[in-house]
Each structure stands twice: as structure tokens, then as C-alpha cells.
């Protein structure tokens, strides 16, 4: 018979790990195509826009357009990866395959499942970030190599943020089609207002004020200076904002998913 001793409660802290590992093992089976997808899509964006549009543009903020675009692509790619994983993939595990229901019958609870999903989506999006970073390194789109290493924790924070937000959307989604609303109403506006493709310095004050609140803006405010060879201004604030968005999303996801599955 088991007793509620401290050792067991201590183990609880890592309860999410088997869930993370389950997703990792499935991913590993298809890692090749998945990695290719991680790389190909953002690379085409970056190279197509960078060289295509870049040829028409003078330097942006004193750097070639491709260098400017690199930070946006990195943040965008990490955001997309975390969002897809916590929306489409998590939804099929939750709703279609009933994987979460199966896990909930074991000693794990919903928090463990959602933490596993949160950390998994964060890990996977970090991988997307690393893929872009490799391109940045290979093409030499940076000023200071050491500073580009700081992009790794930035990718983790960005992934965490959008994984948390994605899980909360997943919790209330009736079907796959619903995610289109999230992409049209949240992700796309963020891409357009967050400064992925162009600097937002020319925005009128009201639009700039809106943009300043967007999670993706915080990610880009961190990533862009790092690529351009400077420490970001208000670094802690941006990092805290990403963390806060992610945690708020996760807390909402936990409550909403509990309502959905366990009532």
C-alpha cells in the first residue's frame, strides 16, 4: 500500500515528463519530414522576401533587409510552431485520439498532461528557432555571434508564451475549423503589427500603442537587437511579458480544459 510520503509528492513535480516523452517519441518517428517543414517554410519566407523585397529596398534601419527580416522570421517561426502544436496536434490528442483521457486514468492528472503539452510545444518551437538560427549563422546575418546565443532563451520564452496561449484556445475549440479564427484574428494581426516584415516606427501613436501589447512584439523587441548586435532595451520587461502571457494562457487552459473534460 502506498502512503502519502514526501518522496512521492516530490516525484509529482516531474509527473509531466512521461507526457512530454510520449510526444517526443511520436515526433521522433517522423522527425525527418518534420524538421524539413520547420526549416523549409520560414527559409522560403526569409530568402524569398529577403532577396526579392530586399532588392527593392534601401537598408532598413541601417542594415540589409535580410538581416532585418531574420529576427522577425525567427520569432514568427517559433510562434507558429508552438501554436500549431498546441492547436492542431494537441487537439487531435485531446479530442480525436482520446490520448489525454487515457492518461487521466493513470496516476497523472490534467495539470501533468497540460504541463507535458506546454513543455513539449515549447521544446518543439525551440527546435524551429534553432533551425532559423542555423540559417542566420550560415548566411552570416548577425553582428555579434555571442549575442545570437541569447536568441535561444528568447525562443524558449516565445515558444512558452504561444504554447500557453494555444492551449487555452484548444480548450474551448469545438473542432479544427475553430483554429482558423485564432489564426485570422490573433496570429495574422500580430504578424502584421508586431514588426515581422517591417519596422513599426512609422505607426501612428494609437497603432503603436496597440502593437506594444502584442506578445509577438515583445518577442521581436528581444530578437531584433540581438541579431543586430545590441542588447535589447527593456529586456526584462519583454521577457516578463512573454512569461506572463504564457502563464496566463496556461492557467486559463487548465481551468477551461478541466471544464471540458472533467465535469
Amino acid at each position, binding site marked *: 500500500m502506498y502512503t502519502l510520503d514526501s518522496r512521492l509528492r516530490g516525484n509529482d513535480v516531474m509527473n509531466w515528463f*512521461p507526457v512530454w516523452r510520449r510526444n517526443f517519441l511520436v515526433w521522433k518517428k517522423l522527425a525527418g519530414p518534420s524538421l524539413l517543414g520547420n526549416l523549409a517554410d520560414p527559409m522560403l519566407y526569409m530568402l524569398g522576401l529577403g532577396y526579392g523585397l530586399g532588392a527593392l529596398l534601401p537598408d532598413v534601419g541601417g542594415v540589409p533587409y535580410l538581416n532585418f527580416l531574420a529576427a522577425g522570421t525567427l520569432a514568427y517561426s517559433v510562434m507558429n510552431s508552438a501554436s500549431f502544436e498546441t492547436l492542431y496536434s494537441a487537439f487531435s490528442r485531446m479530442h480525436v485520439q482520446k490520448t489525454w*483521457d487515457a492518461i487521466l486514468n493513470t496516476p497523472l492528472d490534467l495539470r501533468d498532461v497540460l504541463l507535458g503539452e506546454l513543455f513539449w510545444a515549447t521544446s518543439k518551437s525551440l527546435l524551429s528557432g534553432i533551425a532559423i538560427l542555423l540559417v542566420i549563422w550560415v548566411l552570416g546575418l548577425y553582428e555579434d555571434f555571442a549575442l545570437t546565443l541569447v536568441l535561444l532563451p528568447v525562443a524558449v520564452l516565445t515558444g512558452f508564451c504561444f504554447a500557453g496561449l494555444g492551449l487555452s484556445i484548444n480548450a474551448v475549440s469545438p473542432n479544427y475549423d475553430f483554429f482558423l479564427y485564432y489564426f485570422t484574428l490573433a496570429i495574422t494581426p500580430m504578424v502584421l503589427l508586431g514588426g515581422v516584415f517591417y519596422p513599426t516606427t512609422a505607426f501612428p501613436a494609437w497603432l503603436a500603442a496597440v502593437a506594444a501589447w502584442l506578445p509577438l512584439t515583445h518577442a521581436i523587441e528581444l530578437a531584433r537587437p540581438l541579431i543586430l548586435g545590441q542588447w535589447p532595451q527593456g529586456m526584462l520587461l519583454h521577457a516578463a511579458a512573454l512569461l506572463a502571457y504564457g502563464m496566463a494562457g496556461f492557467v486559463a487552459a487548465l481551468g477551461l480544459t478541466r471544464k471540458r473534460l472533467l465535469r
Partner: protein
Amino acid sequence: MSPLSLRGLTKSYGGQRVVDGFDLELEPGRCHGLLGPNGAGKTTTLRLALGLIEADAGTLELLGHALPAEAKLARRRVGVVPQVDSLDPDFTVAENLQTYGRYFGLSAKTIAERIPALLDFAGLAGKADAPILTLSGGMKRRLTLARALVNDPDLVILDEPTTGLDPQARHLIWQGLRRLIAQGKTLLLTTHFMDEAERLCDVISVIDHGRVIARGSPRELIAGHIEPHVVEVFGEGLDEWKACVSGLCRRCEQAGETLFCYTDDPEKVVAELEAAPGLRYLHRPANLEDVFLKITGRDLRD
């Protein structure tokens, strides 16, 4: 200690009492069946018993742990076969067992050692590396049963383990469940199949609208609730015959084209039927299904 004890369990959805003052005390090493029509509250009761959802009222104890507070702890010693299949389609048979075992905190070594016996038990020896997509419905169900045993549970909870399976597949599952009972495990299963309940269960609770309306061993239920013989009558001229036979049996019930005559004295009914050449009949001992239909009624539930 009772592996599972539920007292005064109540749960409502949208003002509707789905589980309504439910009491249950499992005996160790026995198989207990929950028998009830669609929507009777069987799955909801099991979810409550696992500490997955919170009851509106009542007390629950699972393997000595109070629920829902210690649910995670209690579930370490429980195996669950859910009503809906939830195998991992991306994994092979063995990978499904490995992954599931890790949710219980078992080491890879422990799980690997258990897998051959589990596959043997489920009649899936040699299928360790088969993808889930290649398994038949019966194999998937058996794998789900094996998965529920990966933590060597004391109590196994099965929600309609054989629904949707062909007779051969059902017999294989029953064989497995009888072996578990012989090993001393406690079973709690829900089913719509009377023969399944009759074959496997030491105690059956017939539930409807979230309440236990009859409880006992299959024999006790039959002896206590129904006349020992049934003559089913069908064919031409049933309506005229029905009018004159009612004195011969204790109870007559018509369902569609068939008249069910419940009686202590079947000879008289049969003699009467011999004189009615247009009619055909079937004389048989009463079974659990007759009890079930008598106490839950013949109306369709959904």
C-alpha cells in the same frame, strides 16, 4: 478493506440527477457488474469512482484512499479499460504498453519485463511490433485490457469491455477476465450484455436513472424478480390467443410481434399452444434479460 466503496453518491448534469444516491461496496477478489440501459449513469459512476470528476454529494474510498483528495495515489493500483478506445495510433503494440507504463512511474526495465506476459495474456504474442492500425477491433480491445494491467493493479475497472466485438472476440476477453478473477483481482465492469454479466459477475447491480434498482448474484436476481419459465409466442392469430391465455400465466408482455408469457407452470401454456396450429413458440428458462426488461421496462432510452 473494500477496494471501492461508494456511499450516497450523487451527480447532476444540468439539473438532471445522473447518479442518484448510489451505494456500492466491492468485495475483494470478486467481479461486480453494473448493468443498465444507455444513459443509466454507468460511465459517470466509474468516472466518479476514479476521482476524475467530483460528486455533488457522497463519500468515496478507492483502495483505502479518500477521493477525490488522494485520487492520484489510489489510481496507481487501478487499471482502466475505457468505453472508447484510446490506444496511441502512432505507436506499435509494445510501444503503447511502454508509454502507458511510464505514466505509472514504472521503469523501462520493469515494463519491458512485463510486456511478454501481457501480450501472451491478450493473445497478442508475436504482435509486439505491429502498428495499431493493423489490429482488428478484438485485438485492440485486448490490447487495451493488457494496457490496463501494465501496473499490475489490484482493481480493474472495465467500461463495456466487449461492446462492438464478435462472439469469438468476446469469448477471448471473457477468458482473460476470468483469469484475472482467478488471480485474485477485483473487477468492476459495466455491460449491456446479460450473458456477459451472467457469466462473469458474482454480484450484479442493475442501475437505472443513476439508482440501483436491484442487486444480487445472477441466480438471486432471477429467482427473486421473475417467474422461472418463459414461453415466447409469435405467429398468426396471436391477438385472439392472447385473450384466452392470460389466466394460464402470471404475467404476459407483448413486445412487437412476440408475446412473453411468464409462468411457474409452462406445461399448461404449452398444451394450450399445441392446440393453436398457426402459432409458434419457444419455451426456455427465465434469464437475466427477462429480469432486466421487467425492472427497467421495454421502452427505448434514446
